[in-house]
């Protein structure tokens, strides 16, 4: 029994080491000035300083790419959360074939690989002569983000007692008031997790942005890295940027999870 436990833990450790090797690699080489990854020229904070003072050696595009990425993710996640929550309430009240159709359509963006979503929307914008830029990228991100919000909110709705909503209406609330005061507070945790999921899906996207950003020179972090790498030679400040993002996410996730496990422990006690 002991040996199997040790072997199991060693296996997990090994897989984790392999998974984290590239990230640790980036982090280590963010503390040296050298341009290319894997080239150590002595310890230095120069890249971090460049990043924060905005004095990047050869490309100011990185800062605007970061801004675009955040802006697009925020807009897409907000719109998806509103659209997806409304849709979830609607789907919850649908029966039979209509409900099947909605869940089927909602599943398509989840199953489609990014490239298909990207190409199909590209063809749509070409077909309708819509010029591509911020608007089309946000629209495209809403397309693949909303299904996640729907799937986050839908399970909660079947746990809510419909009488509460009906009672609010009986007591004279307008449907809008009942929505604001009854439904939304109950759905809030699920809407938030849907929002976060949508936000991260949007942040990480490359292929869909690539096909829907048009030719106005709109770059997100992903497309920026792609063009940079194809030109040969990454902007060195990407290394400290990635390290900071990684540490931020690590801290946030660990805090959330340690809190959650403490709460469940309390409940169990």
């Amino acid at each position, binding site marked *: 029994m002991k040996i199997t436990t040790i072997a199991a833990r060693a296996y997990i450790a090994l897989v984790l080491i392999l998974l984290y090797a590239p990230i640790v690699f980036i982090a280590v080489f963010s503390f040296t000035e050298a341009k290319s990854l894997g080239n150590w020229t002595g310890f230095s904070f120069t890249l971090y300083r460049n990043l924060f003072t905005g004095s990047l050696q050869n490309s100011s595009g990185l800062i605007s790419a970061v801004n675009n990425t955040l802006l697009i993710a925020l807009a897409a996640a907000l719109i998806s959360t509103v659209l997806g929550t409304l849709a979830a309430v609607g789907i919850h009240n649908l029966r039979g074939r209509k409900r099947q159709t909605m869940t089927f359509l909602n599943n398509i963006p*989840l199953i489609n690989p990014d490239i298909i979503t990207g190409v199909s929307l590209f063809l749509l914008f070409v077909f309708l002569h819509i010029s591509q830029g911020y608007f089309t990228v946000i629209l495209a991100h809403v397309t693949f983000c909303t299904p996640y919000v729907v799937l986050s909110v839908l399970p909660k709705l079947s746990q809510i007692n419909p009488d509460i909503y009906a009672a609010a209406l009986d007591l004279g609330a307008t449907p809008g008031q009942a929505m604001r005061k009854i439904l939304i507070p109950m759905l809030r945790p699920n809407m938030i997790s849907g929002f976060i999921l949508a936000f991260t899906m949007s942040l990480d996207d490359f292929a869909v942005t690539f096909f829907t950003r048009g030719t106005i020179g709109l770059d997100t972090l992903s497309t920026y890295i792609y063009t940079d790498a194809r030109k040969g030679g990454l902007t060195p400040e990407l290394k400290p940027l990635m390290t900071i993002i990684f540490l931020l996410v690590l801290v946030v996730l660990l805090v959330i999870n340690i809190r959650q496990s403490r709460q469940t422990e309390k409940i169990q006690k």
Partner: protein
Amino acid sequence: MNKRSRWALPYFIFLVLFVALPLLLIVIYSFTDGAGHFSFANLTKFFSDGNSLSTFAVSIEVAIENTLLCILIGYPAAYILADKKLNPSAVTVVLFILPMWINALMRTLATAELFNMAGIPLGKGTLLFGMCYDYLPFMIYPIYNVLNKMDKSYAEAAQDLGATPGEVFRKVTLPLSLPGVWSGVMMVFMPTVSTFAISEFLTNNKIKLFGTIIQENINNSMWNYGAALSLIMLVIIGITTLFQGGKSEGEASGGVLI
């Protein structure tokens, strides 16, 4: 009650306009030529073009190998993670999901650079290992999820009835965890076939996958041929979804976050 079903209407219109219509356009563009006339030229071009066909074959081969590799490495990991005795802490699971927050392209470039430093030439082998890095969490998570929710009393019952640990695994645990494996396969197989950029970085442009030729055609304004290639992928997706036949992949990917 019934009134609220109307709340789905805006999303329904949205889905028709931005999901159904675009897919229909892929079909329409596939069966027309540049001037908009009906034609089979794009599809016959694919089936008579040695380059496209071999890229397609290579992509399927790489995707199968990558999927198998992910199952081989990911299943034991998911099994250990779901076992409370072997892994008492839920934080370990988070550690497996965390790398997904770092930009995939950036991780891939670093992986390629690591191979360079180790003196391993970029090619098929590095492509497989690099892809496996990228997709492993997508395989581990759904399997872990299913194993974690599985009623432990089934395995205990089998044990009480005299099954050896090997038999318990083969006859109880493994069959019950198959839906998770299927979700994982869905989340690894098709994305592997359709990656571009990642495969270029990992092989220094030596090996092209299907996604790359779709991208090249679209970018060079060969929309009809690009659409036809996308249609072929859509058909494969349709077939694999029929095999899997259910909602499970939606639930699985919906839970990736925490």
